C-alpha cells in the first residue's frame, strides 16, 4: 500500500497496553483519512453512550490521506472524540509539522483510550511508545511545554501536540495545540485529553513516505503549487482571513456584541487592512503549504508593547467585535492568553460576550464577577475573564462550561442570547444575513460551524437572495457539507478549494496516483456523503433528537438593526422549510434519521452493523 500504512496504533493509558490493528484498503479508501477516518474509528471504539470525560471515551488522531508529500496544504490531521461541549461528535483539524510527523509514524491513526493515574505524556519515537511523567509540565502553557519536551528528549525535531491549563482544568472548549500556534480548536478535544491526564503527545518520525506514481504526483503537485500563487488564494496570502472583517461588516454579517448587532461601527479599527499596516510582522506557512496564510502581528507600543501573536479572522471577530472590543493590542493579547490556556478562541469569545450581555442586563452582578466591569468593549475585563476561564476560578467556572450549559445554569432568560447550536458557540457569520449558512448552523453535525457546513458559499454566490430561506437550499448545503468532508479527510486545506477547475475529477486522479487505490470522481464524492453519514450515525447513537437541529431564540426575534437587510430575522417557517428540504436531500427520514436505503447505498450497513455495540435497525435507527 502506498501513502497509507494500513494500520492504527491503540494506546490504553490506564493499562499502558499498546496494540496495533490493521486497517483495510477499503476502509481507507471509503473514509480517506482525516475527519472521515477519525469519525469512523470513533464510532467503532467509543462505547455507545459513553460520558465524554470517562476514560472509555477515545481520543482519535487521524492523519491526512495525502499528507507527507509535496501536495500543498495536505499536512493536516484530525482529532475526533465525543465532545464534552455538545455530547455529540467532536471533530477538529490542525496542521503543520506535527501532522507531518503523525503521517510518518507509520500509523494512519492513533486511538487513545483509558486515563493515566497521574500527568503523563507520550513520546512516540517512530514506532516505540514511551509513557513519560508529566507532573513537571502540568500547569504550563503549550509553548513552554513544547520547548521543555524538546529539550528533555534532546532533539528539536521532535514535534509536540499538547494541552494548556485550560485542558487540564476541563474547560469544555479546550483545544490541543501543536507547532506553537496551530490548534485543533473546536469542540473541546483538549478537555478530553485533560480528563485522561495526557499532557502531550511528542513525535519523532523519520520514516520515508512513498507514493504510487512519484512522477505524476510531483507533476500534479507542482501545477497545484503554481495555482496556489494565483487569484484563488489571493485573499489568504495578502490580508489573510482578517480581510473578512470589512467585507462581512458591509454585508451585515459581522456578529457584534453577542449578535445584538450585525455590523460593528468600529470595524475599521480592527480591519485586516489596519492590522497589515500597523501590526504585521511576518507571514508564515504550515508544513508543505504554498499559500502561507499565517499572519503574525506585533503590538508596537502601549501596555502590551512587544506582544507578538497570530490572528485569524475567527479569533479576531470573537475577541473583537463579538465582545464589542476595537482595541487591537487588547485582541492580540487576548489571543495570546487564550493560546496560553489552550482554549478555543471562538468559544471563549462566545462565552465572554454572553456574560457581558448578562452583566449589562443585570443577570450577573459585580459580585458574581468579583468586581470586573464586564461590559462590552472593555478589553481589560475580557483579559481578566479569560484567565478566570482558564483556571476555572470565580465566574470562569461557569463560563468554562460553554454557553449552552452556562445559560441553563444561570437561567432567567439568558438562554435567549446563548449563541450556540447543539452546544457549539457560533463562529463569525450572522445567520440572519446568510440563510443557507443559518440552515448549516442548525443542522451542522458538530454544531454551529462554517467549516463543516459552509452554507455561506451559496449565500455569497450572487445566485440567491441571501436574506431569504427557501426550497433548494437543502440540496446545496448537502453538496457543500460533503465537499467539506472530502477536503477535511483527504486532507486538503479549504483555502485552496478555488484552485481546481473540476475538483472531484482532478483530485480523484491525484488520489489514485498517490495511493495506487483507483478512485473515480463519483466515488470520491460518495466518500464525502459517507463521512457525514457516519458522523450522523454517531450523533444518533449518542442521543441526538429531532429538534436538536435548531437555532437560538435571538435569531427569530431580534432583527438586523441597521444596514443592508435591516429588519431581517430568521423565521421559524423558513428554517423548518429548509431543514425538511435538507433531510430530503440527504435521503433521511422526515425526522432526520438515516434510512436503511441510505445505509445500503453508502455501504455503511456493513461497516456499522459489524461494529461492536451496535445492531443497526434496532438500537439506533427507528426505521
Amino acid at each position, binding site marked *: 500500500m502506498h501513502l497509507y500504512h494500513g494500520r492504527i496504533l491503540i494506546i490504553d493509558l490506564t493499562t499502558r497496553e499498546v496494540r496495533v490493528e490493521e486497517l483495510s484498503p477499503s476502509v481507507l479508501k471509503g473514509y480517506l483519512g482525516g475527519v472521515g477516518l477519525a469519525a469512523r474509528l470513533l464510532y467503532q471504539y467509543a462505547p455507545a453512550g459513553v460520558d465524554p470525560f470517562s476514560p472509555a471515551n477515545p481520543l482519535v488522531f487521524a492523519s491526512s490521506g495525502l499528507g*507527507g*508529500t*509535496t501536495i*500543498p496544504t495536505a499536512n493536516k490531521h484530525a482529532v475526533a472524540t465525543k465532545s464534552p461541549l455538545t455530547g455529540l461528535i467532536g471533530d477538529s483539524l490542525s496542521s503543520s*509539522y506535527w501532522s507531518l510527523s503523525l503521517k*510518518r509514524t507509520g500509523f494512519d491513526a492513533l486511538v487513545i483510550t483509558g486515563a493515566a493515574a497521574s500527568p503523563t505524556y507520550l513520546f512516540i519515537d517512530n514506532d516505540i511508545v514511551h509513557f513519560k511523567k508529566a507532573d513537571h509540565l502540568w500547569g504550563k502553557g503549550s509553548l513552554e511545554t513544547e520547548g521543555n519536551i524538546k529539550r528533555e528528549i534532546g532533539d528539536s525535531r521532535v514535534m509536540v501536540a499538547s494541552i494548556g491549563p485550560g485542558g487540564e482544568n476541563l474547560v469544555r472548549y479546550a483545544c490541543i495545540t501543536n507547532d*506553537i*500556534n496551530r490548534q485543533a480548536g473546536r469542540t473541546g478535544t483538549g478537555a478530553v485529553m485533560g480528563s485522561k491526564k495526557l499532557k502531550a503527545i511528542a513525535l519523532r518520525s*523519520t*520514516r*520515508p*513516505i*512513498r*507514493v504510487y506514481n*512519484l512522477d505524476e504526483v*510531483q507533476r500534479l503537485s*507542482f501545477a497545484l*503549487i503554481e495555482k*496556489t*500563487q494565483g487569484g484563488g488564494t489571493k485573499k489568504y496570502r495578502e490580508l489573510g482571513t482578517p480581510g473578512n472583517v470589512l467585507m462581512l461588516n458591509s454585508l451585515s454579517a459581522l456578529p457584534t456584541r453577542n449578535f445584538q448587532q450585525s455590523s460593528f461601527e468600529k470595524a475599521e479599527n480592527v480591519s485586516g487592512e489596519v492590522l497589515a499596516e500597523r501590526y504585521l*510582522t*511576518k*507571514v*508564515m*506557512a*504550515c*508544513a*508543505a*503549504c*504554498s*499559500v*502561507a496564510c*499565517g499572519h*503574525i502581528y506585533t503590538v508596537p507600543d502601549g501596555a502590551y508593547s512587544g506582544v*507578538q501573536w*497570530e490572528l485569524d479572522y475567527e479569533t479576531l471577530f470573537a475577541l473583537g467585535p463579538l465582545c464589542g472590543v476595537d482595541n487591537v493590542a487588547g485582541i492580540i493579547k487576548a489571543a495570546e492568553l487564550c493560546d496560553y490556556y489552550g482554549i478555543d478562541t471562538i468559544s471563549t469569545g462566545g462565552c465572554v460576550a454572553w456574560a457581558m450581555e448578562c452583566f449589562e442586563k443585570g443577570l450577573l452582578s459585580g459580585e458574581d464577577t468579583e468586581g470586573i466591569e464586564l461590559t462590552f468593549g472593555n478589553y481589560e475585563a475580557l483579559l481578566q475573564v479569560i484567565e478566570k476561564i482558564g483556571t476555572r476560578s470565580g465566574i470562569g467556572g461557569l463560563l468554562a462550561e460553554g454557553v449552552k450549559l452556562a445559560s441553563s445554569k444561570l437561567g432567567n432568560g439568558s438562554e435567549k442570547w446563548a449563541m450556540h447550536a447543539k452546544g457549539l458557540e457560533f463562529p463569525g457569520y450572522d445567520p440572519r444575513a446568510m440563510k443557507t449558512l443559518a440552515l448549516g448552523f442548525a443542522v451542522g453535525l458538530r454544531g454551529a460551524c462554517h467549516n463543516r457546513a459552509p452554507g455561506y458559499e451559496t449565500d455569497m454566490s450572487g445566485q440567491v437572495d441571501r436574506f431569504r430561506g427557501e426550497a433548494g437550499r437543502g440540496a446545496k448545503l448537502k453538496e457543500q457539507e460533503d465537499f467539506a468532508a472530502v477536503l477535511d479527510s483527504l486532507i486538503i486545506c479549504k483555502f485552496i478549494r478555488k484552485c481546481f477547475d473540476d475538483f472531484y475529477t482532478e483530485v480523484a486522479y491525484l488520489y489514485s496516483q498517490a495511493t495506487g487505490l483507483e478512485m473515480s470522481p463519483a466515488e470520491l464524492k460518495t466518500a464525502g456523503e459517507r463521512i457525514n453519514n457516519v458522523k450522523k450515525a454517531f450523533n444518533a447513537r449518542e442521543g441526538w433528537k429531532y429538534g436538536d437541529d435548531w437555532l437560538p431564540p435571538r435569531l427569530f426575534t431580534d432583527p438586523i438593526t441597521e444596514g443592508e437587510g435591516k429588519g431581517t430575522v430568521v423565521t421559524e417557517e423558513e428554517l423548518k422549510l429548509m431543514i425538511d428540504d435538507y433531510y430530503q436531500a440527504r435521503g433521511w427520514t422526515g425526522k432526520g434519521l438515516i434510512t436503511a436505503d441510505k445505509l445500503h447505498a453508502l455501504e455503511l450497513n456493513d461497516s456499522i452493523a459489524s461494529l461492536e455495540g451496535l445492531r443497526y435497525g434496532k438500537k439506533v435507527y427507528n426505521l
Partner: protein
Amino acid sequence: MERKYITCDTELCTGCGLCEMVCSAEKEGVFCPELARIHLVHLDETIAMSIACRFCEDTPCISACPREALSMDEANNVIRVDKMRCIGCGWCIEACDFGAIVLNRSTKSVILCDLCEGRSQPKCVEVCPKKALKVSTFEIEAQVAREKAARALTSS
C-alpha cells in the same frame, strides 16, 4: 567558474519546507526531510531558513574524511562523494558548521547538495512558492548588499 550555492532569503521564507520534500523526492524517490540535501530550520514563530551546502573554500568536510571519500570537483564546483569509499562514519557531518551533510542509511553513504547537476536550476529553487531560494555567488550577493547600502545612504 564562480562558486555557486543555494541561498535563502529569510524575509521571504515562510517555513513551509517544500524544498526538503521536493529534494528528497527528486533525489531519493521518497518524501523524507531527513534524506533531503537542503534543510529547513525554524528558529521561532517568525524565523525560518533553509540551508544547503555552501561549498566552502576551505572544506572541513573533506579534511575530516579519514577515507578520502569526499573531494571537490573543481571543474563543476561541487563536492563529490565516492560511495565506494564512504562508510557513513559521519565525521564530515560533524565537521560541517551548517549541518548540510546527512547520512543515507540505506546506501550507507553521505549525501549533500549538488545543485541538481544537469538541471537548469535546482528543483527546490524551481518549486519554492515564495521565491525565497536562489542560486547565487558571493560576488553577486556582495554586490546586492552594496547596492542596498548605497541606496540607504543616498535616499535621505
